[in-house]
């Protein structure tokens, strides 16, 4: 699974596995380099693990979690052990979650929201992420999320990312669509953002469709092909040596066949110079 120096090998361009098009994925397995699974669908669900066993016969599988809540004060060790169990079972090359939090000592939120962008919180996130990575025994990366409001903080998001990464040796899952959406909604230059973060820590990239609502607010809708402006931004990111995989996400308006998604995969590969 890894390179001689222990680093995961480059997987190529993959697809987020959704049962809605599981059959199409199997039919097109030669065109899909790897799969990312929503890991939480398999936690505490031993019967669903059969599905993973079947999938891993044909694909390298990378788990994507939603439950680590790395921005919280501590790590949920019980959840972590379950993630470890599944990651071991499928021999995951790395594991990812989101850079945010969804619970505090008094709340559980429905979604992952941004942390307070401060040096103190960057250290907490780094400590949690490092603990997770050490416990998992494989690289762990965090994804930049979309947000519609942030807590007034001492750092910018990019500064926070850089500081968090300087305090641990975990990786970054750069969601280029999320970056584009946030930049549009909050009025900053996504290219300047890229200049401020350590792109050599990016091990995975997410891409998805996005849309603007009636009020002019952008959402990572995951329901359409990847727009050109996101592919242009991907081209800016390029292919840093650390990058192991690019992943296409689709969560609604599933096409009847995979052609639209396969086109997305080709466009992504071309943007970073991976196409043959």
């Amino acid at each position, binding site marked *: 699974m890894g390179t001689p120096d222990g680093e995961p090998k480059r997987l190529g361009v993959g697809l987020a596995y959704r049962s809605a098009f599981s059959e199409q994925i199997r039919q097109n397995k030669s065109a899909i380099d790897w799969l990312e699974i929503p890991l939480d669908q398999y936690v505490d669900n031993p019967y669903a693990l059969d599905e993973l066993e079947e999938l891993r016969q044909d694909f390298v599988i990378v788990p994507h979690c939603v439950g680590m809540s790395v921005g919280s004060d501590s790590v949920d060790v019980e959840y972590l052990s379950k993630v470890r169990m599944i990651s071991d079972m499928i021999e995951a090359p790395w594991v990812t979650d989101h850079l945010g939090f969804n619970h505090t000592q008094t709340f559980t939120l*429905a*979604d992952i929201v941004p942390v307070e962008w401060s040096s103190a919180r960057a250290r907490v996130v780094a400590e949690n992420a490092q603990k997770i990575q050490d416990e998992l025994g494989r690289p762990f990366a965090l994804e930049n999320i979309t947000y519609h*409001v942030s807590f007034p903080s001492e750092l910018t998001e990019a500064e926070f990312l850089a500081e968090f990464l300087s305090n641990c040796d975990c990786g970054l899952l750069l969601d280029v669509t999320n970056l584009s959406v946030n930049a549009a909604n909050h009025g900053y230059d996504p290219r300047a953002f890229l200049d401020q973060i350590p792109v050599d820590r990016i091990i995975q990239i997410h891409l998805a469709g996005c849309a603007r609502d009636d009020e002019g607010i952008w*959402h990572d809708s995951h329901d359409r092909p990847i727009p050109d402006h996101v592919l242009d931004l991907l081209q800016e990111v390029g292919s840093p040596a650390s990058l192991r995989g690019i992943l296409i996400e689709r969560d609604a308006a599933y096409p009847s066949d995979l052609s639209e998604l396969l086109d997305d995969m080709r466009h992504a590969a071309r943007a970073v110079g991976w196409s043959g």
Partner: protein
Amino acid sequence: MARITGAQDLFAHALLEPSLVTTAQVNPDLLKARFAASDADIKRLARIDEAGLARAAHILHGKRRRQLGWILPATRTLLFDDAVGHVVVTDYLDSVLPWRESDEPRQQLAEALRFSAFLQEDVRVSAALAQLTAFEVVRYDVMTRPIITRENANPGRTSSGRLTGGTEIVSFDYDVLAMRSSALSHELPEKWPPAETHIVLHRNDREPIRIFRVEPSVACLLVSYASIPRLADLAAQCEIELVDAERIISQSIAMGMLL
């Protein structure tokens, strides 16, 4: 008094109750008294862009509706949404449910909340709801928790949860839960609900992989699923007559329980 333990707690609470920002701007002492939050955190809360917060809160509520269901009319949906955090449940119970003293809606509410707790398999919420509703919170171990991921919770994405078993994953809509309490409490055939029901989950090749023995209330729920074409296969595996399902659904519609 809600116990707030830091900036993120306060931020999270503001997402659930955006008026806190206004309160922080005009009367920080009130907020301080209510939450025992620090001056510094309250000052930062007051700096949050109100329009942005309202938008974020709206989106968050939308996601919650999609996650936990459109099972009840608006006010009750709010409550159901916020069943995720029991502090907020209490707040909303007091603020949006003036009719809570009425036994019938209270019972229906309790039923819904029982399902909420069950669906989330969140022990803290379950305990809080048990106290709140004076109902025993029942854990149905015949079903795994619904699959709620960020992916299926975002705007424009699926509103379904999933009942999982074996390799077959069956989607369902939470809407059907609402009819459950009425279905159980009104005229039904004598044999309904049966004392015991078996449900067989099977692989795509129809080979049974797990057989559940479930209590009647869950059977009733699954009967409701039978109205959804995609779940016909599952319903057909239950020892339940589908004609009863149709009757229950008709009754529920007549009672205005279905949205």
